């Protein structure tokens, strides 16, 4: 996936002189995860450069450039470190178009690696998507495959709205499915790792049904898409697995159709459960599919604790926990 992201950035730098990117260590070095590897050398010092360690400053600067008509793609090194820029994102990027009567807006795309599974401890593992989803005026996009990563990232950069583009860092180098007893897989051979050359987009707000099924619906995004597929495989439930791809805008139609069909639903995310994005999904589904639901909607999520270093695999929602939830919605206990 990291190469697909690099490719998307390269394509956009090549196509559009208004695109530029900056962030901590992304210039000469190419980023701590190598997302911008080679881009400064290829496109020049001014198109992809390092910044002071100041997330607030990075986003403020990006907004100012966006106001001029540029399309900056700032990187925040870890999503945990977006918080110093939270005010800029919420009070400025998200509000600018509205409050100025449409005179100004900030077409910025904030890329940031997020999520767990790499033994990164509390401040290199968190999933902050819920606090963005609640902010009116921000879009939040989360890919789960190389194909989607490239297409969604290009669509995000081309969007005239501010986009938080969260990259599941555990998927950078392979489709991790939570089975920690198995050999680490690379993307090689995965169908969605075939990334076309050049420009293409995956539209924001369109979910993907990554597995059709009739017994239950699983809603997931990012790494949890792969973990959910593994859970389905391991637990023999014919579940439909939906990859949301963007959580704002949300593809409510696809979700509603699926749950109306299956009558059962499990929602999965890495972020802690209370007040997480799963709560909104659960609320929406019960509002729209109430008379079709056969069992309570289940949420499988991180525990309501900070992300704990040594307990990585106890915290991370693995296939076993998803399987148990599937069993509960199938009333198989």
């Amino acid at each position: 996936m990291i190469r697909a992201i690099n490719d998307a950035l390269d394509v956009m730098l090549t196509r559009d002189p208004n695109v530029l990117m900056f962030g901590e260590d992304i210039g000469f070095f190419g980023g701590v995860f190598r997302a911008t590897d080679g881009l400064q050398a290829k496109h020049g010092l001014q198109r992809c450069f390092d910044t002071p360690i100041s997330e607030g400053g990075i986003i403020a600067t990006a907004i100012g450039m966006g106001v001029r008509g540029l399309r900056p793609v700032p990187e925040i090194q870890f999503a945990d470190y977006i918080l110093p820029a939270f005010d800029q994102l919420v009070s400025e990027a998200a509000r600018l178009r509205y409050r100025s009567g449409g005179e100004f807006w900030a077409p910025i795309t904030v890329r940031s690696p997020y999520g767990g599974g790499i033994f990164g401890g509390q401040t290199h593992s968190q999933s902050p998507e819920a606090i963005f989803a609640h902010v009116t005026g921000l879009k939040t996009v989360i890919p789960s495959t190389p194909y989607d990563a490239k297409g969604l990232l290009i669509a995000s950069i081309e969007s005239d709205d501010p986009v938080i583009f969260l990259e599941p860092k555990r998927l950078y180098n392979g489709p991790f499915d939570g089975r920690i007893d198995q050999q680490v897989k690379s993307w090689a051979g995965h169908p969605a790792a075939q990334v076309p050359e050049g420009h293409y987009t995956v539209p924001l707000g369109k979910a993907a049904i990554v597995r059709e099924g009739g017994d239950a619906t699983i809603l997931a995004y990012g790494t949890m898409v792969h973990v959910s597929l593994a859970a389905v495989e391991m637990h023999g439930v014919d579940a439909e697995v939906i990859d949301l791809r963007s959580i704002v805008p949300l593809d409510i139609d696809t979700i509603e159709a699926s749950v109306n069909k299956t009558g059962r639903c499990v929602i999965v995310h890495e972020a802690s459960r209370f007040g997480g994005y799963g709560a909104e999904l659960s609320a929406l589904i019960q509002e729209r599919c109430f008379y079709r639901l056969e069992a309570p909607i289940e949420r499988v999520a991180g525990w309501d604790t900070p992300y704990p270093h040594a307990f990585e695999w106890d915290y991370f929602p693995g296939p076993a926990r998803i399987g148990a939830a599937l069993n509960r919605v199938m009333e198989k206990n």
Partner: protein
Amino acid sequence: MESQAHRANRPSIQLHIPEPLARPGDKASFDHIEVPPAGSVRRPDTAERASQLRDLPFQLIRVLDNDGKAIGPWDPKLTPDLLRKGLRAMLLTRIFDDRMFRAHRQGKTSFYMKSTGEEAIGAAQSLILGHDDMCFPTYRVMSWLHARDYPLTDMVNQIFSNARDPLRGRQLPILFSARDYGFYSVSGNLGTRFGHAVGWAMGAAYQGVDEIALAYMGEGSTAEGAFHETLTFAAVYRAPVILCVTNNQWAISSFSGFAGTEETTFAARAIGYGLPGLRVDGNDFLAVAAATRWAADRARSGKGSTLIELFTYRVAGHSTSDDPTRYRPRDEAEHWPLGDPIERLKQHLITLGEWSEDRHTALEKELDDLVRSTVKEAEKVGVLGESKPPLGEMFEGVFAEPDWRIVMQRREAGVHGDD
């Protein structure tokens, strides 16, 4: 570890809380403020390195002397026409402010903020910078817009939040936005736009054009982290931006000691970033113009950013919600040593033979009439509560295109068709 025994006879420790020299009931005092004579500060070449300019932040650039004459190397030698434009803008600002403040008392608007005593700042800078430059304002530099002849009716409509409000009823009165007038969107939260100016300016440099940005921050707001982030980015990328601290010495009820001036100046912050820092008499139209032009020339020639402290005094209350007699002597403004910027510019023009008391009185009358008739016109559209933009405007502009939530909620709120 060293023994702590030797500390026994140290003076006893106490938490220091800054206090202003005078509170209500006390005799007002500006004794701590040194006012050097006009013309006493050197004017270095705009190409000089910041490290050669470390004396400037501790001085006060003044051009107009007590007789209304322009003195010394910073005299910007502006044309009488430009000076009269500035005077008009300042006077309009003052008259408009007074009228709107009264409109608030009459319930015609929810909120208003005056810039009494600070009119020189926006007016001078607006006239010195160019049409393609961009200012990132606070709520207290409306004279920028008045200097550029922003349509008064639009302004009043915004303040009345009526059907013709150019900001479509979405924003608090006076938190303006006027792109065509080089005036960026203001918002209620402090400090956050300072960094946008740097990004905008970096964008200009990136595109290879010599447009520059100018940003304002109140002295109280400089305590926000955003102030530092902005200066850091401005310095690191040598952004063509002028960063202004309007030090009017008060932040609502808090005197500037709470922003850290007990031992230094705001201009001195520049030294730590390797930037030039100018400290300027903010009530001196000519000094403001001169310092701005110096910084603008420097920025346009690729030498980067300048920090300007505009030393002034907030004569009025913070806003319509404030009563300054609760926290400072009622007559404090009368003791303020740097005078009234309008009066000073007027005297200068008279000294030059380019203005007279009669013309001044006539101008006052003209502007007063203008404001009155504009308010009347806006009142015909409606004041707060009588008239507002169509309800549909509440749902516009959240995103470039509404998503299903907005579409559904518009319907639920009873918005039909174009409304």
